């Protein structure tokens, strides 16, 4: 992958992957940071990326793992200042256009949420979702069915149109 190929890949994929990771983790700032970092790692490993069949899937998976790892560590982080050696960066405010949908997705079990996002938002066929998460296709179909049913119930409970009015 050379410079021009990477730039084209980044410009074409960044917003899409960002939205997908946002839907998976429910935190827009975190998603943006993790996707930027995942693209940087893709460039750092550009020789390896040349042999990757689906670079966008590689970036998405890397970003998701980064996000999950950071979330785990954040669990211990809500205590008073001690050994800070810098100041935190300011991020732009969160775009809350889809906050209700994402909030509903966050209530799904992680495996169902991941399947829903990859199939319905990343638009991957079921067999590719199965490959990306390392589960059989039958399992993915079951997760999709259960996830959609739960999501329908969650969304039915909200005030009609609230998603868009909150934007």
């Amino acid at each position, binding site marked *: 992958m050379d410079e021009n190929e990477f730039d084209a890949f980044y410009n074409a994929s960044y917003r899409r992957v960002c939205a997908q990771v*946002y839907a998976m983790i429910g935190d827009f700032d975190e998603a943006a940071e993790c996707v930027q970092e995942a693209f940087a790692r893709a460039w750092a490993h550009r020789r390896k990326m040349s042999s990757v069949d689906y670079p966008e899937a590689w970036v998405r998976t890397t970003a998701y793992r980064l996000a999950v790892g950071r979330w785990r560590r954040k669990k211990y982080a809500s205590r008073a200042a001690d050994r800070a050696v810098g100041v935190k960066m300011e991020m732009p405010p969160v*775009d809350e256009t889809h906050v209700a*949908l994402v909030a509903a997705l966050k209530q799904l079990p992680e495996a169902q949420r991941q399947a829903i996002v990859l199939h319905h938002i990343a638009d991957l066929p079921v067999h590719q979702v199965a490959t990306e998460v390392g589960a059989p296709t039958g399992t993915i179909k079951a997760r999709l069915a259960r996830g959609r049913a739960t999501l329908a119930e969650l969304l039915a409970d909200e005030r009609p149109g609230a998603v868009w009015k909150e934007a």
Partner: protein
Amino acid sequence: MSDPISRLDQFRADTPGAPMKSAAEVRQRGDQIRRRRRAVVVAGAAAVAAIVAGPIIFFSAGVGERALDPAPPPSETPSTTTPSPSGSAGPSTMTRADLPVAEDLIAPLEASWGETQTYDGEGGDAYNPCLTKTLGDSAADATFRRDFAIGPSLNAGVEDYGMMSAVVAEFRSPEAAEDVRADLSTAAASCTPLDASPAGSLPVAGGVVSRGDINVVTYVSNDPGANARPEIATAVVVAEDRVLVLTRQRGAKEQVSSDFLQTSLQTSAVNAAHRMVGVEPPAPPDEPASSPASSSASSSASSSAPAAILDDSHLVVAGSLPRLPLEGESSAVWQQIAPQSIPTLYCQGAWLSTLKAAESVSREFRLENPGEIGKVNVTVLEFTTKAAADGAYETVYDWLDTCPASMNDAKLFKAEPVESIEVDTSPAIDRAAQTLAEYAGDCGGQGCDATWYDHQTVAQLGTRLVLVTHAESGGPCPPTRACPPEDPSDYSEWDNRVAQTVEATVGRAVQDLS
């Protein structure tokens, strides 16, 4: 009931706008990651290789004669230029911290180099009289310069041992940097502004250096008081997208060994190149790096073994470990400590001798400021068969997974699930796994919330296992940049330090298996 599919379709069609850096900025960040990983992996092996990098044919006293330029064989000048695609564009990340410090430069006898001045840019006067073009003229994104003089401890002056100046510059790409290096090297060899005579040349290689050489010329001084034919030695080195020009000027005198002077400049140039890319220069061979390894946990390195496979060369040195930033600009430096009778891993369930390795070497490092704030423990194990190594890997993996911590008294707070990780080494390892454990820190009997955060790693390549702990103290917060950490970037420096430690230790341990 609301239709979730239409809502999901709408989400996909109406992708939320995310703040987006330019592709150039992302590539620059990627180049930083790559440079750091590459530099750390090779740093440990640099010093010795650099010092003996090729035959040195040098005619210090042969004024007016043309020295042979021993073009070094390919194996001694690793990769002319890294065959990477064109590099990064964007704002320079170079700072004064990328300049060498006095300790990086080798001084003769009991003398030492002292820093005299540092400039942002290349200073007001010529830093090298052989070069008519500055690095700024060559479209460098940033340049910095630091001048040095021999310290007062030796009864000698500039005419004996000289002055040194170091200029570092960052360019848009590794290819642009290599082009500049080639031009500067040619100019340094001919030194036309002084009508100089070539006196010798030699390569600079090893560690982070992509390509480099030293050219030495002498010339007739116009100074009527000069008692020697002055000499200018110019080292020009490229490492990724950065160029170092290290210039030493002195009067050529017989009583100073030319071998020593040129070799010292060669080592100084390698050290300065490491500093230029943000890596601690490799420790000299006679420093703690080569002191005896800890006694083997599996003392079966035994009498019956035909010939030892493992030795000190498989153990990381302190200079290859990442610095730990402290408040302000300071940082703590790792110190190798005397061999310890301690477990390598906090989660270890038994002494490593139970793994029944054929050989074992280990080493420990500590960071103090002034209390203990960091620990690195490493053990390298060699097994007689792949199956034995596989079994030991599974045992260690199980320790990481369940964290029995039966070798420790400190209370376990939390152990993360063990995860597979990638470690960028050459040769590539078979597999590696890592977990993070948090446990109570020592407060000297006082109640406190001090906590150790231990990243414990096991890596395997064939019959060899590497066990590594990178531990940093914290409490109440983990050792993140901000406390409490709120932004993902607050974790990145900690992540990078752990990755650097793992890559340096594992890379060093398996380097002979290629």
